[in-house]
């Protein structure tokens, strides 16, 4: 036994991550305003959410963040395609964060500084939100429940929640009048926002997972149905072929299975109760193949419903095929059916030994007569064309009323 590999050639289809380059380009696709923050994030190799938070925080200093943003916008070009840049190590990211904090402290010593409270509130809220907005994370509190989330992700979520709570606390402590007006309203709103941030992404992901699961289940059902069909048909035939030592029989089995499988694959399977002469002729041909182990090539042009006279035509065609299979010695038989201009024609042709129509033996004459009689009774005609060594052709014609 040897194994033969069947199927398409294996392909190199590895996903290639592009290397980080320091050329600053704006992002083409995944952007909020002009793709500047995304572009900076790609160039630095850090999360774009943090870069956006940095721009927002910087903007509290008399709009400096907005100015820097627009300056970068002016001098950069759009990236054509979105690539996935390599992320830097946590250490480097922390370094960038500390450098940003240093910049803010430096700005605090200048006359531009608005107030500590404003910068701290905005910065804490911006970075807190950034820490929580990670596409791959299920949300801060859900992250603590979800076992698939890894440790750095959990830390990031906790960091984000702490920043948000801190920012909101500073905000609440400094907005006394607002706190007096509607403490209940404020707490309700804060709770709502908290729950949304905590569980919103998780719920969304659950919904997506459910859809995926349903599709997968449908696919599996289809696969099971196909497996059942293949088992009943193809595998049975393959088993039969393995046990058979007669090449002719093997070839017929294979051929029969091929036709059946193709009909099933391409949806040509005969419908229940669909009485068409094309289907009936194909079935008859298959039966002759199976019974006599001679392949029959069927070509059908046009079609007609089965009725009494077309059934006679079918019966005669069947007899002609059996006859050719038994007596001609040909290695294949052709069956051609055509419906045109109010008349049906069937040709059963073989390239076998043929015979002298005038001098045929009584039993064969009998078959020829029975073919002829059958068709003529139903109002058609039969013609048998043969010569010794030149094969045989039985031609049957049947007039039909055009529908």
């Amino acid at each position: 036994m040897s194994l033969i590999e069947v199927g398409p050639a294996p392909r190199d289809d590895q996903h290639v991550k592009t290397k980080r380059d320091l050329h600053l380009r704006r992002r083409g696709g995944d952007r909020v305003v002009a793709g500047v923050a995304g572009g900076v994030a790609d160039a630095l190799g850090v999360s774009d959410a943090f870069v956006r938070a940095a721009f927002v925080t910087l903007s509290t200093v008399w709009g400096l963040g907005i100015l820097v943003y627009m300056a970068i916008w002016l001098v950069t070009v759009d990236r054509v395609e979105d690539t996935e840049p390599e992320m830097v190590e946590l250490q480097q990211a922390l370094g960038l964060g500390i450098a940003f904090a240093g910049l803010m402290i430096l700005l605090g010593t200048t006359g531009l500084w608005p107030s500590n409270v404003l910068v701290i509130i905005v910065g804490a809220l911006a970075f807190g939100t950034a820490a929580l907005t990670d596409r791959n994370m299920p949300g801060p509190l859900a992250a603590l429940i979800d076992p698939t989330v890894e440790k750095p992700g959990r830390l990031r979520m906790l960091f984000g929640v702490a920043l948000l709570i801190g920012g909101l606390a500073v905000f609440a402590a400094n907005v006394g009048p607002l706190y007096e007006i509607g403490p209940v309203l404020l707490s309700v709103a804060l709770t709502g926002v908290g729950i949304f941030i905590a569980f919103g992404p998780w719920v969304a992901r659950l919904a997506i997972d459910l859809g995926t699961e349903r599709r997968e289940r449908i696919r599996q059902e289809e696969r099971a149905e196909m497996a059942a069909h293949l088992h009943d048909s193809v595998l049975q035939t393959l088993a039969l072929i393995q046990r058979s030592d007669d090449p002719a029989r093997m070839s017929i089995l294979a051929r029969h299975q091929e036709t059946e499988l193709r009909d099933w694959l391409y949806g040509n399977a005969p419908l229940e109760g669909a009485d068409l002469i094309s289907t009936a002729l194909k079935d008859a041909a298959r039966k002759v193949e199976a019974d006599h182990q001679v392949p029959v090539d069927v070509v059908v042009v046009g079609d007609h419903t089965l009725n009494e006279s077309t059934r006679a035509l079918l019966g005669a065609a069947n007899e002609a095929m059996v006859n050719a299979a038994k007596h001609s010695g040909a290695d294949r038989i052709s069956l051609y059916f055509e419906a045109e201009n109010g008349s049906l024609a069937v040709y059963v042709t073989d390239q076998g030994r043929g015979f002298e129509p005038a001098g045929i033996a009584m039993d064969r004459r009998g078959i020829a007569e029975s073919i002829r009689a059958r068709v003529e009774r139903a109002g058609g005609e039969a013609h048998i064309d043969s010569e010794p060594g030149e094969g045989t052709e039985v031609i049957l014609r049947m007039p039909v009323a055009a529908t």
Partner: protein
Amino acid sequence: MTKVYLVDDHRLFLAGVKAELSEEFVMVGSAYDVDSAIEEIRGLDPDVVLIDVHMPDGGGIAVVEGVGETNPDVKFLALSVSDQAEDVIAMIRAGARGYVTKTIEPQDLADAVRRIDAGDAVFSPRLAGFVLDAFAGAMPSEEDPELDQLTSREKDVLRLIARGFAYKQVARKLNISIKTVETHVSSVLRKLQLSNRHELARWASKRRIV
């Protein structure tokens, strides 16, 4: 010697055909998928390409069209288990010069390759049936009625092919030369490729009932 190239995503079948044809033809190469087939055929410039109708990524049609743009002299013979008429007709309309089923006898396949190489068309009984069906009974269009109909002689030739007769026998039955049979078949091929009859494109969906 005639250079032959094979395209089939079914490797077992491909190996079998290669063995059958290698005595008589130079087998210059083979491919299992559309993209590498187009690239290699453009480089090797074979005389005849045997091509499977059904393949992933656009199938045989994609290869016939892709190669036709750069190497118009490469001739295609479609070879398939499919008996979906619309696929086969589409393949011929894309530029293939013949269609035979994979159950063809090795000797007949070699004949078909020789015929395609000589510039003739190769119609298997099944293709002849498809063509008769596609052209049957419809009215010719006004722009080019000649292209949209088969002559009665062409129909006679196709009917005999559909009945399983070889070109030689067709010629004898109609009292014409083999060359004339080939001319008729080539003319049918031309009509098949150039006719604007919309039935040809969409025809398979409806089966005609007399």
